[in-house]
């Protein structure tokens, strides 16, 4: 199948591209960021989605399916730019799909769509509305993009459209919102609250996206991984230290003392859970996560070891990630790393000493297309 992948230079999208290639698909990518390690089998059109060159790719490649992954979170971009990318970009992609008769479109969205509120149920279904937008306006453009993409289901009923709302990804690439949030040695929690967190191994996320494509999924689907765990358990298993702060202290302390800065809305995401039900996705595709919750956290910990781990085995730690990265698709993608940032080395050999956690969080977040909604580390571009 001829597949066009927008936002291909993002860490997760790179893995999707490589896996598509391995499945024998013909892959074209659009991204304004470069991907120097892009393998020869993949055509990369380096341009902005909203530029004529992007439409030319639709026109000349005549893709049979489009996977839209070119959305960013508030971690990465200023508001006006974010709106242009998320909503403007999504609008353009669906416009081109219609104009150039692309039979299938897949929008990769986020489970934070649903919003973190006190009286929401656990295991929210696809029919639940987005909530708490008033307290977290930084999410509004992503919610709008999600709903706009879903509107293609009734606007273009003859085409196959699917919207995936995926939980946080975690894994060796150390990319994504949750990875950024857990990057530092100290992870903030709200005193007296310990919400459930849902996450999945990035290799499982890649599999789910490709499954949705190959099964020609139609509709809106939540995609989740293994069992949800309390935030404190995530922090414990990944070898970090929880810093429990009263809610009232957050405006004073965040962004200081090595803690990430969180917006008001983002604080709700470490106070209340967003737990989704992936029942219909599992039924439609037969998807089962291959990596358990502790295995996924272990993969993250190996790739981003806490000081304690490094101290226990100092000489061999020069290439810990390479040694322990599971031999799956992500390992290959991992080596390619991210190009715009210096951290492309981290997939192969992480110099353990010199990775200031906060700076690390910033790079992985700003480099990331997948970054969702929680941590907004201080330094921004």
């Amino acid at each position, binding site marked *: 199948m001829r597949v066009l992948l927008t936002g291909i230079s993002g860490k997760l999208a790179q893995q999707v591209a490589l896996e598509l290639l391995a499945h024998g698909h013909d892959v074209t990518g659009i991204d304004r960021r470069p991907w120097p390690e892009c393998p020869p089998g993949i055509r990369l059109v380096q341009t902005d989605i909203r530029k004529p060159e992007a439409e030319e790719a639709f026109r000349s490649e005549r893709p049979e399916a489009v996977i839209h992954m070119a959305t960013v979170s508030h971690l990465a971009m200023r508001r006006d730019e974010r709106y242009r990318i998320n909503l403007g970009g999504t609008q353009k992609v669906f416009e081109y799909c219609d104009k150039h008769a692309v039979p299938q479109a897949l929008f990769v969205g986020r489970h934070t769509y649903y919003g973190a509120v006190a*009286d929401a*149920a*656990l295991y929210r279904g696809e029919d639940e509305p987005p909530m708490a937008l008033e307290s977290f306006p930084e999410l509004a453009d992503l919610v709008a993009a999600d709903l706009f993409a879903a509107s293609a289901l009734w606007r273009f009923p003859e085409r196959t459209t699917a919207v995936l709302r995926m939980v946080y990804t975690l894994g060796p690439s150390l990319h994504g919102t949750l990875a950024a949030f857990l990057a530092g040695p100290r992870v903030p929690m709200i005193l007296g*609250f*310990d919400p459930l967190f849902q996450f999945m191994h990035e290799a499982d996320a890649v599999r789910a996206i490709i499954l949705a494509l190959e099964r020609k999924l139609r509709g809106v689907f939540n995609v989740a991984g293994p*069992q*949800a765990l309390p935030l404190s*358990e995530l922090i414990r298993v990944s070898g970090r230290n929880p810093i429990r702060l009263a809610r009232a202290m957050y405006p004073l302390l965040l962004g200081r003392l090595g803690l990430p800065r969180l917006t008001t809305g983002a604080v709700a995401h470490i106070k209340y859970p967003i737990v989704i039900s992936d029942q219909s996705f599992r039924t439609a595709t037969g998807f089962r996560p291959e990596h358990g*919750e*502790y295995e996924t956290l272990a993969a993250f910990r190996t790739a981003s070891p806490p000081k304690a781990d490094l101290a226990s085995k100092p000489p061999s730690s020069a290439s810990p990630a390479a040694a322990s990265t599971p031999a799956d698709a992500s390992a290959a993608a991992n080596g390619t790393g991210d190009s715009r940032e210096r951290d492309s080395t981290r997939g192969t050999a992480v110099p353990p000493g010199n990775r200031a956690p906060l700076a690390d969080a910033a790079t992985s977040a700003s480099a990331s297309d997948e970054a969702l909604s929680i941590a907004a580390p201080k330094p921004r571009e």
Partner: protein
Amino acid sequence: MGEDAQHTAANSGSNDEVAARVARLDLSFNEHGFDRFGVSRDSIAAGMRVMGWLYRNYFRVRCHGVEHIPPRGRVILVGNHSGGYAIDGGMVIAACFFELDPPRLAHGMADRFINRLPFLSQLANRTGQITGLPQHARQLLSDDRVLLVFPEGARGTSKLFWNRYTLGPFGTGFLRLAKSTGAPIVPFAYLGGGEAVPTIANLPFLGKLLGVPYIPVTPYVLPLPLPVTSELRFGPQMRFAGTGDESQHLIQREVDEVKDVIAGLIAEGRESRRRGVAALPGGR
């Protein structure tokens, strides 16, 4: 099980007993003791040590009819609320844990405000006392768990001392739920909550400041519970056929049936407590 299921009180809630019972809970915990609703095995054990002591030594709960709770499968426990805050809920959960064999975890349908309060929210969530939303109730029942419902809601705990044996208006959601999920209802009466926290007034304004519906006031001001011997009576299972989509009129009639049974259990319990107080020197 007969009049006093509590000669077990001798080995009251020893740590070994709690650990052994937690291990026999029919819940699918992952390798570190968490289930999919965020229930933690360790939190259950810690909570039950406290609840077990309260159940056996402080409130000395006499439990009757616990055999009406099925040993496995979905069930809704429906009863009366009283006593300022949900001591009765805690004691029913303790009864399911200590009196049943194998033990079962009852999931109370917590009031919405609980999730907003620090610590309380964490404690409630780790012990399976999640917010009383219809979605949660349905998920727990389809997972064949024990649901604990007080259809009076917060109106039930706000009863004043002299109204402690009355029943307020019942919500109807539990009955529709029982019908749509095919779960039996086990009615129960809890007696003693109203004496343990003898509320003479409620302060909604102070409650609002603290994020709760109201603060109960007792003759000794603070709403601390007194060590009042309490009684818990379960009645025989009630089954209601139907889809759960019946007219409100019909549902209300069946809700009233359940309410009447609970009122009957309260009357029985009052009688038995009166006799119990007379028979036992020192007044249990």
